[in-house]
């Protein structure tokens, strides 16, 4: 499904918090005229990201709106007038390969352009590009494993923008000071593997690694293990094994920021579902209502029962479609009514299939029971905090037990208890 560029909508709603960390602070006021690419909210604190206007027009209001998470967040609403960009952004599609910026300038540019991880976590990229004192990094891994079934936006990017992605990878390598990068791609995307393997011959130190198809390989720790055999310790970060992981979508955004001075104001969103008439990958401006995306895909099928923001395994169900696309919106999946409800819960038959499915080597049945019975010490001892909530256990369970619901509850409680303990 090739990427289709959608027209600029009549109005956009841009939340000031589209990333992990502190919300940005609005830098415009009601009635201000803004241009495309202009900063409208600035990063506040260490972990935060700039937010830019994705359109040109007039700020009509700044108020809390319900976003894709279902919570109210402060957002800047802009009525669109034309499409006038600020100066200094290279909007051409010409490839710029030569990296002229220094390490520090690259990191600074990513901060300025509001680049965040587009694989799902939306962690500010500039922070991940800086290796903290005491840590070393010897390798970059580019995540080309589409994190979830249904989503194809990364796949398209690897085919349509291969050189840009590779240039983005070499920029991140330069920032990290490493000479080696591996792009992990699952074997069910042979066209992407062939394309990038061919193109990467012209890039020093970048190789493509085909991987067996296995959910949840898009998880950072699983990908590192699959590509290098290194195991990130429990509770640790990739840097504990000298690795940084970035998504292909992020690599592309970094390329655009560093080589083209283009802030993160648009992204590719997959819109799909069994009964969707014209599923596709759409390039949209941040802040475009999800409703517009659904219209572009042929409208909402009559028997739609559930709409999910993200993938079917980890995505969030939307209560409303009148919510804006944000930097972290990777896909919109429309499920028909009959697939949108849970099946009857049966007793656990101790088949152990959840344990076999768990990529972290946990025992979901045990964690789920521990959480249900509020045995939080037991849950902590059994490493409930290692759970990455991939949903493989609940998917596999023949008794349809809501394993992840309980584990999520238990994990949140255990993490709160750990924080309380540490602050004492």
């Amino acid at each position: 499904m090739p990427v289709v560029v959608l027209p600029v909508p009549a109005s956009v709603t841009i939340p000031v918090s589209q990333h992990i960390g502190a919300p940005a602070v609005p830098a415009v006021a009601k009635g201000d005229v803004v241009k495309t690419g202009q900063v409208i909210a600035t990063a506040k604190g260490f972990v935060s990201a700039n937010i830019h206007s994705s359109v040109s027009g007039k700020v009509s209001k700044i108020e809390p709106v319900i976003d894709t998470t279902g919570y109210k967040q402060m957002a800047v609403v802009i009525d669109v007038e034309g499409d006038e960009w600020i100066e200094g952004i290279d909007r051409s599609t010409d490839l710029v390969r030569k990296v002229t910026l220094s390490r520090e300038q690259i990191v600074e540019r990513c901060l300025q352009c509001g680049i965040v991880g587009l694989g799902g976590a939306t962690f500010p990229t500039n922070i991940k590009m800086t290796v903290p004192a005491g840590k070393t990094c010897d390798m970059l891994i580019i995540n080309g494993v589409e994190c979830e079934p249904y989503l194809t936006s990364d796949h398209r990017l690897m085919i349509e923008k291969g050189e840009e992605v590779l240039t983005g990878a070499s920029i991140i390598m330069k920032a990290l000071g490493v000479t080696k990068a591996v792009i992990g791609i699952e074997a069910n995307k042979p066209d992407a593997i062939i394309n990038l393997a061919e193109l990467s011959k012209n890039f020093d130190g970048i190789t493509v690694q085909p991987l067996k198809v296995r959910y949840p390989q898009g998880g950072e720790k699983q990908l590192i293990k699959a590509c290098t055999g290194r195991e990130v310790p429990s509770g640790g970060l990739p840097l504990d094994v000298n690795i940084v992981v970035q998504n292909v979508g992020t690599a592309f955004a970094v390329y655009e920021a560093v080589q083209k001075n283009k802030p993160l104001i648009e992204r590719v969103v997959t819109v799909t579902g069994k009964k969707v008439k014209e599923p596709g990958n759409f390039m949209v401006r941040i802040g475009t209502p999800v409703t517009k995306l659904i219209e572009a895909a042929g409208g909402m099928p009559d028997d739609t029962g559930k709409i999910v923001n993200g993938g079917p395994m980890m995505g969030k169900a939307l209560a409303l479609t009148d919510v804006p696309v944000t930097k972290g919106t990777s896909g919109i999946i429309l499920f028909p009514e009959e697939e949108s409800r849970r099946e009857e819960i049966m007793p656990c038959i101790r088949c152990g299939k959840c344990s076999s499915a768990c990529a972290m080597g946990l025992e979901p049945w045990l964690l789920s029971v521990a959480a249900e019975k509020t045995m939080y010490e037991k849950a902590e001892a059994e490493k409930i905090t290692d759970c990455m909530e991939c949903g493989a256990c609940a998917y596999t369970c023949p008794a349809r037990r809501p394993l992840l619901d309980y584990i999520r509850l238990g994990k949140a409680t255990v993490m709160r208890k750990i924080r309380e303990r540490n602050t004492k």
Partner: protein
Amino acid sequence: MNNILNVSPSPHQAGSETTRKLMYGVVFALVPAMAASVYYFGLGAIIVTLTSVISCVAVEYLVQKFILKTKTSVSDGSAIVTGLLLAFNVPSNLPLYIIIIGAIISVGVAKMTFGGLGNNPFNPALVGRVFLLISFPVKMTSWPVPSGFKTGYLDAVTGATPLGIMGEGLKNGESVSALMDKIPSHLQMFYGYMGGSMGEVAAAALILGGLYMIWKKIITWHIPVTILLTVALFTGILWFADPDKFADPIFHILTGGLMLGAFFMATDYVTSPMTPKGMVIYGVGIGVITVLIRTWGAYPEGVSFAILIMNAFVPLLNLYIKPRRFGKEVKHG
């Protein structure tokens, strides 16, 4: 845009496997052994099976309806599996009232008193079988001899099982080679041409069903393969040490309830360990105890006891044998 959307936490998809499908998969895997049983023992096999399945389902239904007063769950298929396995573990000429007692013990006592499906510590069909063996020792050990399809039921010609002949003969000081002449050949035993419980005799049919379950991922290879290997290895060593006092490993693998036990009884999800490592330990335990009982115990056959004894260790195995945690071995850098 007037749809009201469902909202729930992820994951938003579920796999195709359900408890019901798994249970009916086991039922399907038992079909070859059932067919073999009807072929060898005739109408008796059908009567015993129907009685057992109907009474197991009825007991579950009645207990839930009148004692527990909960929603009935008989449609999950687990009572049908228990009924089939109970039938497979008794002679094909067993009087019906004994089968009904077995069903009451299996489902009513061994399963429902613990809270129904998923909560019973011991394999229900085996509890029923052992209860009957102790309560009706004569009726439970008068094995009909395979005689092709016939309509006779209670009046079947009976004889001892190969394990019985072997055990009795060795006690009387006869040699293995002399005893081997009194029992069917290995090939006959492989096809099931010998006395025994109605569903346990046909090794070939049971292996077929077991392979089907492994192929369909209903069970994994761990439990059946370790049980069979352990029995083969243990009896192999004994046989190698003194082939006149101990029967050969193939004899042991093909006789008694070993095939049925290894593929269908020991692999019961509820009463077996949940990790592959735990399954291997459990399988070795069953194999060792089986050979100990067969060789030095009071009973000629020990698979049922071996499985029940190891069932008791399952909670411990689940507690101490953990999957390998991701990232455990690496030290913080």
